[in-house]
């Protein structure tokens, strides 16, 4: 059996302290995983503001339930699963109670030349970003979450399967579909 390395031992100690109610130890874990937890929430809800809010909720819920965490899975995967569940519930609630989202406005803002400069390269990059976001918007939530968790967050297939609670084979087929569809939509960019 592999011996835990120093970082793992350090993490295990932080978790044990958090289980005893040490908020500072938990704060260190927040700093360590905040970017990725926000990334997981982003992959599901596809909106920055909501993702930040949901990531906060993820950490609060994780702190409340840290005593139930058993080291069967890694702490990071456990956190990502909480984040994905909260984000998926949020999306479900949003579908039941649709409200005006800021996504269209955000897209419009992205179209405007930025104050930092209007060079051709920057305009080109922002146009490309807009097209990619639009293409992602054409995928279903499940396909988008899978491709973003893989390509942007760098999660393995097993981790994605754990986080999205679906079999590994489903992860593979979702990724295959998402890639084929994105390639179709972004043919000129992907085949450059």
């Amino acid at each position, binding site marked *: 059996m592999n011996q835990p390395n120093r970082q793992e031992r350090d993490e295990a100690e932080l978790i044990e302290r958090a289980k*005893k*109610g040490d*908020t500072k130890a*938990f*704060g260190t874990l*927040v*700093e360590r995983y*905040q*970017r990725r937890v*926000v*990334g997981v929430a*982003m992959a599901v809800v596809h909106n*920055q503001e909501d*993702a*930040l809010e949901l*990531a*906060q909720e993820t*950490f*609060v819920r994780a*702190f*409340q339930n840290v*005593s139930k965490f058993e080291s069967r899975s890694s702490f990071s995967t456990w956190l990502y699963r909480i984040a994905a569940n909260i984000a998926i519930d949020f999306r479900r609630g949003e579908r039941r109670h649709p409200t005006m989202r800021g996504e269209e406005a955000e897209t419009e803002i992205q179209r405007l030349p930025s104050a930092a400069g209007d060079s051709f390269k920057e305009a080109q*990059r922002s146009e*490309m*970003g807009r097209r*990619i*976001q639009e293409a*992602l918007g054409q995928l279903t939530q499940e396909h988008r979450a899978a*491709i*973003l968790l*893989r*390509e*942007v967050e760098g999660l*393995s*297939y097993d981790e994605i399967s754990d986080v999205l609670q679906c079999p590994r084979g489903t992860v*593979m*087929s979702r*990724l*295959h579909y998402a*890639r084929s569809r*994105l*390639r179709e939509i*972004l043919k000129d*960019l*992907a*085949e*450059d």
Partner: protein
Amino acid sequence: MAQCDDIASLLGAFEDGELAPQEMHEVALHLASCKNCDLTLAAYANLGGLLRDAAPAPSLDGFATAVQARIERLRPPLRVRLGRWFEDLRERYGNAAAMAFAMGAAAVLTVVLTTPLARNMLGARERAIQVAARDAKALKDDTGKSLAEMAAVASREPSAIISKLETSNPDVAVWSEPSQDTTVIWLPDQQP
């Protein structure tokens, strides 16, 4: 040799290094002789880069502080509060005294919770009486039944432990529960 159709669904997983060694070998062999699949693979790799470049990076300034503030406001769970109380005792009176005090408290709690008094306090007696009265009424409605059938009807309630059900008169039901020190005698309303 595998056909393009068989290989297409494996290309993404090949790019991610998530196939079994045998499949990795098979795809690599196919790619060596198929320009079309090789182009698809390159497009998938390109797409990954585009998605990473276009991924918004939300500002995390103040994120950890906000989470910390939220978890500080949470009331710690009972287990944590008990742990802190015990730690506090240990610091004040030393290990032995704290241990003796905690064991004494646990012993008192155990005695209280396992006595009939405690069970009565938790409402077992009242529940037993209510169940008895209800079932006795049901028995009265079906006086034509044998004692064994009546007992079966009365014991449908999972929380009732019926030790003995006795009656020689079909209008009177007597239900004894020695373990609860409870006897319920049911009499019909007086006819005018």
